[in-house]
């Protein structure tokens, strides 16, 4: 329409009209743009004033100074950073004489602990379930299908509550705990064998640890496949030598009448939260894996079959490598929602970030300031996960390109 009018006006007037119209449009655009931003800012300011007045009515002042007050409450488990004069902060158990800020850190540490463990376990279980849905074995195929369907179609919260009240709390008491290759399973918690450091300053052990770390770094950041294989072998070798020379040793938990000593303990709350989140996320991951296997062109299967590859080799060598190249972003979304789902720990009393926030809000009344901290923590966790997944994705894509 505008073009039409401009053409009628003739070539000479055309330019002037066009320029004028462009300028008018430009000004209108800037005006609307400016008014949108101004309206947003005004709304934000009104919101802040309303919150401040509302809080003032309850006699609360919006400030973050409560973070430096003594907590005065205990947390059932979890560690925090303590500055006790040294250059590095010490990483020790939280006690009620610590600051509220340190209570928040305990919550973040507990959340990260569950999230990292759950990400690793749910990826393994999810890929197994996803491949299981394509198994040639009828029972395995249907079992995986129904497990995934059941978990996806019921709420996570009821699964969590069920794992806690109907499974973990019905484990045998510690005096009669089930023992399984050094793992102790009981109502009071799960205990695993731990790797402990016994090298105490011996130069050989320290050198071996340094070499192991270097090999692990090489394994992660190595540019070529052969270098990574060498590094992986070196890690196994160094750890083996460390065991043989007594630099590190396995510490097995020993169950007594009321509690277990040694090893790494896991509280029943953490075990239930981990179980629920792992099983739930694994079923979503299984669905992603199955979906992207289905989305691969059928020609891939046919070409592999025509080369005489059997089904297992086809899946391992042809199908899964291509699948992993496309599923990583979807996995990243699942990891983020997994991290958010750990906030349900409040339903069974696991002291993750949101639960500790609830305690702090109750104790101090600073619920709105606390929300800001909790929100920022979850935002940073989400960004960190998507950055890590993005890094892994780019790396995989590059590897695929050079091959």
């Amino acid at each position, binding site marked *: 329409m505008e073009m039409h009018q401009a053409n009628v006006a003739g070539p000479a007037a055309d330019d002037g009209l066009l320029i004028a119209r462009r300028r008018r449009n430009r000004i209108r655009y800037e005006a609307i743009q400016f008014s*949108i931003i101004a309206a947003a800012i005004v709304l934000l300011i009104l919101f802040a004033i309303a919150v401040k007045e509302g809080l003032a009515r309850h006699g609360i002042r919006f400030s973050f100074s409560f973070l430096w007050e003594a907590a005065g409450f205990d947390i059932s488990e979890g560690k925090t950073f303590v500055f006790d004069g040294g250059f590095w902060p010490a990483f020790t158990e939280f006690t009620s004489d610590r600051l509220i800020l340190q209570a928040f850190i305990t919550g973040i540490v507990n959340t990260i602990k569950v999230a990292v463990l759950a990400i690793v376990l749910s990826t393994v279980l999810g890929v197994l379930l996803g491949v299981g849905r394509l*198994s040639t074995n*009828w029972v395995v195929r249907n079992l995986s299908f129904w497990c995934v369907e059941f978990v996806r179609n*019921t709420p996570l919260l009821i699964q969590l509550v069920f794992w806690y009240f109907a499974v973990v709390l019905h484990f045998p008491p510690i005096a009669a705990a089930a023992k399984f290759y050094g793992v102790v399973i009981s109502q009071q918690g799960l205990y695993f064998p731990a790797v402990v450091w016994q090298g105490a300053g011996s130069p050989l052990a320290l050198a071996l640890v340094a070499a192991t770390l270097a090999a692990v770094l090489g394994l992660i950041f190595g540019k070529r496949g052969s270098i990574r294989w060498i590094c992986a072998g070196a890690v196994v070798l160094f750890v083996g030598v460390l065991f043989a020379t007594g630099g590190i040793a396995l510490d097995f938990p020993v169950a007594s009448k009321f509690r277990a000593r040694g090893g790494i303990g896991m509280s029943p709350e953490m075990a239930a939260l981990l179980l629920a989140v792992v099983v739930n996320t694994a079923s979503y991951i299984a669905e992603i894996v199955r979906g992207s296997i289905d989305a691969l062109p059928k020609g891939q299967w046919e070409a592999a079959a025509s080369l005489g590859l059997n089904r297992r080799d086809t899946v391992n060598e042809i199908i899964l490598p291509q699948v992993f190249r496309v599923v990583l972003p979807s996995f990243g979304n699942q990891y983020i929602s997994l991290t958010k789902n750990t*906030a349900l720990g409040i339903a069974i009393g696991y002291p993750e970030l949101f639960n500790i926030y609830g305690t702090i809000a109750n104790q101090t009344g600073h619920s709105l300031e606390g929300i800001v901290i909790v929100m920022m923590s979850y935002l940073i966790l989400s960004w960190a996960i998507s950055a890590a997944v993005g890094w892994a994705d780019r790396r995989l894509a590059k590897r695929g390109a050079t091959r």
Partner: protein
Amino acid sequence: MIARSLKWTRHNLFGKPFDVLLSLTVIPGVLWMVYQAVSWALTAARWDIIPQSLRVLMIGVFPADQAWRAWIAIVIIAILLGAALGCVFAFKGRHAGALVPVWAGCAALAGIENVTNVLLIAVTIAAFAGGWAVASRFPPVRKALVPASFIGLIAIFAVMAPPGAGLWGGLLLSILLTLVTAVLSLPIGILLAFGRRSRFSGLRWICTGYIEVMRSVPLIMVVYWIWILIPVLTPQFNLADVVRGMIGFTLFYSAYVAEYVRSGLQAVPRGQTEAARSLGMSEFDINRSIVLPQAIRVVVPPLVGNVLDIFNMAPLVFIIGLTDFLRAGQMILANPQFGDRTYEVYSFLFLTYFLVGSLITFVARKLEAHLARGSR
């Protein structure tokens, strides 16, 4: 027959050495677990607790003498759901046949001896079938569905409010919360999706920021935050917990709906917009009558999946002290008299959630197939 089943077994269970190994380890384990579960359900379990506490499970602590209000709400919900179904799938005779066993099952659960309940269940199912049939036979009704659902929800609120919104509970609360969130988050989500594609970078930033922040924080935190924030902002209104919970859910799920709608908007070919522009349509008209209908068509299946997500997250309202379906079950277990019926109650809860969830998933899959067939 035997030869064929032997052949099936050899192919599907013992095809390769690895399959033999899997079958030999998995089948006995599964059989043992099924045997344990069935023998418990048939002998040890005492199921009388479910009919006894069915009212609490369905409507929570809503007063028993006001139950007729809940029944009116259930009938309205049934009509709306039936009409929504009728917009896509035509009502046929076999569907009516399938609803009879559903009625029988519900009646058996509620107790045959209670004639009023059996009749009321029949009325509910008849309302569902009626809404379905009317919407599938008379296409003009479909245009009125969105305003009708708003009016229906308002009517439910009006009917249920007098005894006190704090008393709402049970499965009815879960369903109401899901419906209200699903209906309200759709327009907000569409606006956010358009805002994220706007020509104005200021609007784009605001919408993107809102969507991204909401998608990276847990729902339970948003619900709790809105719950404590609303009385601080509007002390004069004194909104009920239920309403505050619904606002929190709506604000959270609008961001998810916005992302689904945005993916649908991206799927609309550019040629559509360009063609409409060359016809001289205004930007608003283009978006309203060319882009949005095509985008919505693409995203209906994921949006139905989103309804399942909302329903599965509804138990989170325990954080603001509401008694939804799961919490009602826990309340029954908190009664010392029924303390040892953990597995019975949880089995019932799991089964109900699974049935409702599977139904929603089934509808989403059918819709996907249906719409895929329609597009060329």
